[in-house]
């Protein structure tokens, strides 16, 4: 059932009982982690465990002419060696919207299509023995032509990854005939080609799985996943099992960022091996393996035209995106759809024309990464509007203000079909300008230029709106009073570092008056929670939290009915007292404790006659918000660019993110910091690269530069609060805002620093060499 109540007002002063909502409550999760006692999947070593190691292709595209496993099979400790022949798995279709022809054989069946594609799997008594034996599997490759660049993959005569399909096109989005009058109203058209480079998610914990069997020999899986049911259901389907007989647990999970969603084919191989051997198996990915096998993110080439009037008013936007889908197209191929959905962004744009094509290439497949299609939209809009501002000699802040959708227009449906709930874009931008001291920064920039300083100051602005809880509006939540008066709250979302146990306990404690310590949040286990979509798309508080909220409201209502029955009072006179007891208003002494009420609910002689079942004082429901929410914000980045070396130094980053009502500012600011860090990393440092033969050049953490503390300043994060009417908490997502707002602000800041030289664009990552080279090339003109 679905229930909605009015948003509670917890932004201001204390509620009658002194609201905990809105307070910076420290996390319950931390003590265990800080003692080293939190259990991650790789910390498990069940009795009888064998270890699985993959043999991965070292060639980007080849016929596999022979796999010789004989020597490996005789190595010490080896239990089994698997190839396509004996693993017993069907080709895997990972995303239903794509042609089945792109299905991936979990272990290569005659062809490998990227460096890292799996050829064989070795199971041995110890991991070291498995590694040793994997090195003795001899694979003969007959190389095929390689295509790495997605534009090259679409050209005539390109090597084709799946000859049966006769094309590398995975999916195209093209919703309307090209409008020849698209730019008719424009007085100026600004154009750009932007590369939103491929990046690696790099959660600090790599991937893996522990496969076990329970007493009834049913599968029991421990997986570092964001969505246990997203693993359970494909596993059940693959092996023809009743989903109820497959248990998936996510233990402590060391980060995900979108890449730990879905059912990796590696899991299927490990499960199939464990079933054949009837013993527990663990696969623990190494980091170098992770850089090849965990889905990458982003990866778009964007051709953008923006039409404007001379006063800066936008008349139209035209975008063509070429998306890198990788060797086995998956969710990543679909993400340009979300880029399209957000192609109007925060602006009034009468006409938006968007087309995209996603191409298979001989590279690691792509999928969701913190923002998943929406950062790419903000990136091109914020880049092109800055180019327009430069062209029209309008301040970047001013040109944005001239085009913002006004607050009174909400709710509204954009020309690309997004149903924006609430928004006040200028409020966030004004706040970001105030905090940054925008005018003073501009004055500093001018004075540096006047005195010929070789270190330029750059100020970058970005404004964004994004989609949270997109496509997954519903979630399970349950609240039950235990016999000792404590509360168990179950939820279908699955925390992997976000602090949901703390956030959800706050909601229950607020509504039921119990101590937060007396609330046990149960999540991430398909045996304990009946259903759930997990944690992704910044959905958890707004959907899962609202489910917990509504279930708590229902439990309180039931408790009032029960208390009225027991106290022979009118239910309308029953309240929750400050002492966490439920009883007649003004008579706290006779009120009943939660333990009393829980006992009464189970006692047919004490509960109301119409309560025929013995479920106790509990509520189980699914909350459905009906649509996505659209958080927004404004970021200002301040950089120094040394024009003699190309070195960029991020001096300040100001983020004003509006995620509606803030439940726990500690958790919200933590999400902002982390998001800004990852967004800054894309702007300045990171990028997956391959040579022309498809060899990864960024295959470990030596070569792939994820930034350290030394590369960043402290971040200046804050919030405006524009509650959404779609859920009882008034909450919108915050998990991905930081990455969406920060990347273009920082890129714009670097370009802004160099704009006086006539530089209008530099692609990311803005490493010293690239910046220096652009300066040299510009000066040589």
């Amino acid at each position, binding site marked *: 059932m679905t229930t909605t109540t009015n948003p509670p007002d917890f932004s201001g002063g204390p509620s009658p009982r002194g609201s905990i909502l809105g307070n910076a409550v420290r996390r319950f999760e*931390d003590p265990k982690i800080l003692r080293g006692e939190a259990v991650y999947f790789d910390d498990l070593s069940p009795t009888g465990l064998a270890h699985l190691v993959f043999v991965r292709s070292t060639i980007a595209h080849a016929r596999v002419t022979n796999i010789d496993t004989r020597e490996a099979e005789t190595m010490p400790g080896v239990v089994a060696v698997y190839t396509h022949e004996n693993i017993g798995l069907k080709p895997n279709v990972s995303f239903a919207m794509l042609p089945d022809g792109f299905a991936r054989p979990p272990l290569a069946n005659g062809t490998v299509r990227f460096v890292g594609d799996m050829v064989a799997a070795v199971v041995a008594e110890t991991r070291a023995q498995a590694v040793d034996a994997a090195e003795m599997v001899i694979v003969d490759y007959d190389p095929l032509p390689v295509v790495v660049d997605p534009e090259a993959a679409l050209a005539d005569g390109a090597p084709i990854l799946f000859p049966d399909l006769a094309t590398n096109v995975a999916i195209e989005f093209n919703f309307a005939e090209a409008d020849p009058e698209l730019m008719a109203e424009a007085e100026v058209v600004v154009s750009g080609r932007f590369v939103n480079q491929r990046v690696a998610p790099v959660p*600090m914990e*790599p991937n893996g799985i522990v496969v076990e069997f329970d007493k009834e020999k049913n599968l029991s899986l421990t997986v570092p996943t964001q969505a246990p049911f997203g693993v359970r259901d494909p596993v059940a389907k693959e092996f023809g099992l009743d989903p109820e007989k497959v248990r998936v647990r996510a233990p402590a999970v060391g*980060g995900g960022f979108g890449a730990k969603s879905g059912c990796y084919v590696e899991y299927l191989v490990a499960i199939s091996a464990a079933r054949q051997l009837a013993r527990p198996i663990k696969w623990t990915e190494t*980091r170098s393996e992770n850089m090849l096998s965990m889905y990458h993110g982003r990866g778009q080439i964007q051709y953008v035209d923006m039409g404007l009037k001379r006063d800066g008013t936008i008349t139209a936007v035209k975008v063509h995106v070429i998306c890198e889908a990788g060797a086995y197209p998956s969710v990543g191929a679909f993400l340009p759809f979300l880029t399209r959905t957000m192609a109007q962004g925060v602006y009034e744009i009468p006409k938006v024309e968007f087309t995209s094509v996603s191409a298979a290439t001989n590279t690691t497949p792509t999928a969701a990464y913190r923002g998943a299609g929406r950062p790419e939209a903000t990136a091109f809009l914020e880049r092109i509007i800055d180019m327009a501002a430069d062209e029209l000699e309008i301040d970047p802040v001013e040109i944005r203000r001239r085009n913002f959708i006004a607050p009174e227009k909400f709710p509204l449906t954009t020309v690309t079909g997004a149903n924006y709930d609430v928004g006040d874009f200028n409020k966030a931008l004004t706040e970001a300008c105030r905090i940054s001291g925008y005018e003073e920064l501009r004055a500093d920039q001018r004075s540096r230029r006047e005195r010929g300083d070789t270190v330029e100051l750059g100020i970058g602005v970005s404004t964004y709106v994004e989609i949270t809880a997109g496509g997954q509006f519903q979630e399970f939540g349950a609240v039950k009073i235990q016999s000792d008066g404590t509360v168990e709250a179950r939820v279908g979302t699955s925390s992997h*570092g976000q602090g949901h146990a703390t956030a959800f306990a706050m909601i229950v404690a607020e509504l039921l008056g119990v101590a937060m310590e007396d609330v046990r949040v149960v999540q991430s286990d398909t045996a304990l929670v009946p259903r759930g979509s997990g944690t992704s798309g910044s959905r958890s508080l707004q959907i899962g939290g609202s489910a917990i909220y509504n279930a708590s409201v229902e439990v309180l209502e039931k408790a009032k009915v029960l208390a009225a029955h027991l106290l022979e009072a009118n239910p309308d006179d029953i309240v929750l007292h400050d002492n966490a007891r439920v009883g007649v208003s003004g008579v706290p002494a006779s009120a009943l404790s939660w333990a009393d009420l829980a006992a009464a609910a189970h006692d047919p002689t004490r509960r109301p006659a119409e309560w025929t079942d013995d479920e106790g004082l509990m509520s189980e429901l699914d909350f459905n918000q009906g649509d996505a929410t659209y958080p927004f914000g404004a970021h200002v980045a301040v950089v120094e660019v040394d024009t003699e070396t190309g070195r960029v130094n991020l001096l300040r980053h100001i983020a004003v993110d509006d995620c509606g009502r803030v439940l726990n500012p500690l958790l919200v600011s933590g999400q902002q910091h982390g998001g800004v860090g990852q967004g800054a990393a894309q702007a300045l440092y990171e990028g997956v690269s391959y040579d022309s033969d498809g060899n990864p050049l960024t295959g*470990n953490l030596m070569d792939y530069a994820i930034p350290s503390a030394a590369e960043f300043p402290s971040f200046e994060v804050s919030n405006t609060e524009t509650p959404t009417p779609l859920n009882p908490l008034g909450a919108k997502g915050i998990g991905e805002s930081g990455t969406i707002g920060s990347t273009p602000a920082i890129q714009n800041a670097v370009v802004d620093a160099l704009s006086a030289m006539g530089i209008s664009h530099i692609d990311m990552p803005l490493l010293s060499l690239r910046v220096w080279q652009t300066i040299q090339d510009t000066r040589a003109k």
Partner: protein
Amino acid sequence: MKISISVNGDKQTHDVEPRTLLVQFLREQANLTGTKVGCDTSSCGACTVLVDGESAKSCTMFAAQADGSAVTTIEGLMTDGKFNRVQQSFQDEHGLQCGFCTAGMVMAAVSLLEEIPNPTESDVRIGLEGNLCRCTGYHNIVKAVMAAARVK
């Protein structure tokens, strides 16, 4: 080969392969899984422990190299059931999210504060350069270490 390491004051003697890394010894022989492995190039620092009081990435040394040494891991930081000041400040300042880098980060910070008792923000940032975190943007980690430094 047989090696003996004092881990958190507890003498651990095990017969291991010569190629066994210290981190494997800690996780697999000593069953102390609080120390994590986040990479295979000594880049991430998740495996940082104290070897004879100095921070070391336990994936960069063989267990045999620590034979006869005293090693402290995250499990050995508490005194009389109370957090070390760095553990406490990580909790207070929200210095962790997924927690996978935390053990290494805390151990590195303990060592950093031994070396520089009154660090500047820049000292902390440079001092923690060898420890990677993907969740926090380092903001609250740095704040936590600065806060711990103020606890004397």
